[in-house]
Each structure stands twice: as structure tokens, then as C-alpha cells.
């Protein structure tokens, strides 16, 4: 089988050209060629669903036990469905808040937990206006 050694050449004008990292056998392209090396992209890491992902600024200390502090940017994904234990951004009686979502099987109750002993759990009763806005996937914080 014929083989070509494809090398990067110096670009005189600034156009970004991807560099292949393996030999290319003529005839049958290697599946690995699909994986071009490219710089790490933090969007790729932090955002699974771009159309459904929103950033919000954290205020307050109710979730410090979960590693979420005032001033953090929380990455919220609306495409993800909350399950027992998810950290969620919810609207409770017209106010946004971030808490841990807890639910028991067969509809035997939903409640919200803070990750800070100073805040008691909040049962979600039928008389409260409650909506899960999205699931918090990451907290971004400058150290």
C-alpha cells in the first residue's frame, strides 16, 4: 500500500490549518484522521447543549457545602431533567434559588435541600408555585 508522509509547512500568511497527526494510506482513509488535534475548548467541556445552557451569578451561601460560593458563575442546562440529588436552579414562589433537588419515588414528596446546615430543608407543597428552571452542571470560580 502506498503511503504519504504529510507534514506541516510554515504558513507565511496567517491562516489556521489543521495538522494531520498520522500517515494517510491512499485508498482507505484511517478513521483516526477524523480526530484532528485542536486546542482545548472549554465550551466543549462546560456546555453540553449550547441552545439550552445559561450562565447565572451565584449570590448567598446556602450551597457552600456543594462547592458553590457567592460570586461563582453557575452553568445551568435546561435540557437536562432533574433527578433525585441534582443541583437545580428553581423558581419558588416567584424567586430564583439554587438548591439540591430531592424526590422520593412514586410521588411521595419533593423537597429542596441547601448544602449549608444553617438552612433547613424546604418541602414543596402543592400551594407553592414551583418550577425547575434548569440543572446546574458547573460552578466557575476564580481562585
Amino acid at each position: 500500500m502506498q503511503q504519504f508522509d504529510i507534514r506541516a509547512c510554515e504558513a507565511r500568511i496567517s491562516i489556521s490549518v489543521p495538522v494531520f497527526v498520522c500517515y494517510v494510506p491512499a485508498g482507505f482513509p484511517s478513521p483516526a484522521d477524523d480526530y484532528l488535534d485542536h486546542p482545548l475548548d472549554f465550551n466543549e467541556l462546560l456546555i453540553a447543549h449550547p441552545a439550552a445552557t445559561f450562565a447565572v451569578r451565584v449570590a448567598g451561601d446556602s450551597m457552600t457545602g456543594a462547592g458553590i460560593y457567592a460570586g461563582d458563575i453557575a452553568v445551568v442546562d435546561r435540557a437536562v431533567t432533574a433527578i433525585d440529588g441534582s443541583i437545580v436552579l428553581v423558581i419558588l414562589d416567584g424567586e430564583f434559588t439554587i438548591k439540591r433537588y430531592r424526590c422520593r419515588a412514586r410521588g411521595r414528596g419533593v423537597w429542596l435541600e441547601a448544602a449549608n446546615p444553617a438552612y433547613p430543608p424546604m418541602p414543596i407543597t402543592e400551594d407553592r408555585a414551583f418550577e425547575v428552571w434548569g440543572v446546574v452542571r458547573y460552578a466557575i470560580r476564580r481562585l
Partner: protein
Amino acid sequence: MENLIALVDCNNFYASCERLFQPRLRDRPVVVLSNNDGCVIARSNEAKALGIGMGDPWHLNKDKFDRHGVVVRSSNYTLYGDISARVVTVLRGFTPELEVYSIDEAFLSFEGFADPMAHARKLRGTVLQWTGIPVSVGIAPTKTLAKVANRLAKKGEGRDGVFMLTHQHEQIAALEKLDLTDLWGVAGRLAKRLAELGIHTPLQLRDADPGILRQRLGVVVQRLALELRGTPCHEMALSVPDNKTILASRSFGRAVTERSEFEESVASHIARAAEKLRRQKLTAGAVMVFAQTNQFRTQDRQYSASRTIALPVASADTLVLTNAALRAAGCIWREGFRYKKAGITLLELGSASKVQGDLWTPADTPRQRALMQAMDRINAEHGRDTMRLAVSGVKRGWTLRSEQRSQRYTTSWNELLSVD
């Protein structure tokens, strides 16, 4: 099954965008005002129920709005544009062919789906979950009928905000419920001309002789009638056509009488438009500048003018474009008028990679391009207008009035929603 087209339309789009981040607005009447806080351009259902009309001037209705607890918002196009793009992204997952029709509407090809109703309901649920925006879906064999179906879906026909008009008898029953002016593309004037031909209802239009319609009112009306019968005449325009021009214009927050303020505004419009130009990897071959006074202030002397200046070589450089625009601005400026509005249009757009310099004027040099790149990056990271030409002004007395604009929740790090 014949080819079907779905029209997806966001319900009260601007109001829905405002409510997404402000849950307190949910059960209250909300209106959004036009540029400069002039008049009502969007209403929530509650606001519609109060009899607030599109185009109602805000300053004449302040008392009424206060009395009914109407929440008033200045238009926040940055937010609406971002949410609109998100909705379109989700919609693209539901069809191979999509045409964006406006900021809150898109036509989708529904060809070949076994159960279009179920597909539409899933689409609607996904858009609502992912973006928070409620939409209505109308499905029919033609765009015009899809518009009709959508209108009826909004009025609660069909199920879960989805309404389909596939069969003749359904289409006829639907058209019986509408007036001529409810149809896509029929305004009062055309309705009058149709009435002269004895056509007073959508159904009469549908059944009129296409030949006569064409002869008396032109091909557009003939097509409209054919579309009402289920014969597609409007193809899907699949790719958004290349922008042939880029336009930036605004009303001033107050009348402008100083030349320096006018020039600042022109330069700042150029900066905005040039950034857009570079983002699309385009160059402009000409710059048009216009200015006008407020024609509704009959007590004022009126003036309006525009001037286009062609560039020797197409460019995407803010400095080059600003120079040209200011020359044009100098040509049209007249002392002694109260200017209401100014704007610029970038014309003769071409691909940046195809520009050739001429003997006397080189194309944008790598140095120029690098400077523009750096400027765009700084402005992207630190906010609009962090780096700009001094001529576009430091004080900016003329900036648009938008006193009750909500935060730019999705496009500015400094304006994120804050959550306890």
C-alpha cells in the same frame, strides 16, 4: 402523504423573553416598547386582554398602564436575538429544512414524518424545556395555510398549541373563521381591491378564478389563492440569503442639533456595522450615510438627505469606513435643523478573501487586519465599545432612550441573573 410545512411561531415572543428571567412578570400584563420607548410593540396575553393595542404610544397611556399594573419594558434586542437563535438551533434538530422567517417565526419542512402531530408536540415541548419559550405550530401543505393553521392554534384550536390542516374540508372550515386581512400578506388596501372584485372572504378568494386574479391583481394574489387551495407556490428558502447590505440606524434619544453629535453617532454606527462585516468575513465597497429631521414635528423645518461614498478598494477596516462615512456626513450636514435620526448602510458587500488593491490604493494590509482583530477581541471580552475611535464620542448625549430595559442576561457577563 403530501409534503407538509410547519410554521413555528413564538407566543408573544418579546414578552416571553422578558418573563424567562423575571418570574414575577408571569401573571402580570407585560408590554415592550419600541426603540426610544416610543410605543407598544409587543404584549403579553394579559396586556391584550386590557385592550392595549400594538402601536399605542407609551407617553399617552402611562396613567392607564399604571392603573392596571402593566409592566413596561424597553426593547432588549440583544436578549431577544440571542433567545431567537437558541430557538432556531433547537428547531434544526426537528427538520432537515428550515427557513427563518422573522425573529420569532420559522417554516419547517415536515415532509416524510409518519405522525406530524406527534412530531410537532415533541418539538414544542423541547423548545419550551430548552429555551423557556412557548411556541405554536401550524401544519399544512402550503406556507399560507400553515400561517392560517398557526393562527388558529394560537386561538386554542387543535391540541397543545399544535393545529394541522391537511384535509380540504378542514381547510375550508378554517378559512370560514377568518377575515381577508387575517391572511398572510393581505393588508387593508389589498382587501379593498379584492372587495371591488366581489371577494370579501378568504373562502371567496380561494375559489376565485386564478386567471382573473392574475390579470386584475397580479401574480402575487393569484399565488395566494392557489396556496389557499393547497397548491404550494412559495418554495422554502432554505439558506438565509446573503446579506447584500448591512444597515445601522437609530433614532436619537432627543433632537440633535450639533454637528459633533451627529458625527459621533455616524462613527459609532460604522463601528457596529464594521464589526458585523468582519464577523461575516466580508468587506464593503461603499458607505451610505443618511440623516433626517422629525417629520411629525410639523412646527420644525424639515430636511432629510443621504449620500453614498464609494471606496477606492473594498475594506473592512473601521478607520477606512469611518473616514468615508464622515466625508459623506460632512456633505449632508446642514446647520439649523433638529435631527431625529441618522444611520449608515454598508453596500457592495463582498468576500474579504477576494479583494484586490489597485495601483494607488492597496487592499487592507495585514497590519490593518490585525488591528481590527485585536479591537474586535477586546470588545468581545470587555463589552461593546470598550475600544473605539475617539470620534464616535465619549459623552454620547444622543444615545437611545431605553430607561426600562431588562438586563442582557445571555450576552453580558456583567448583567447575568443573580441567584441566591
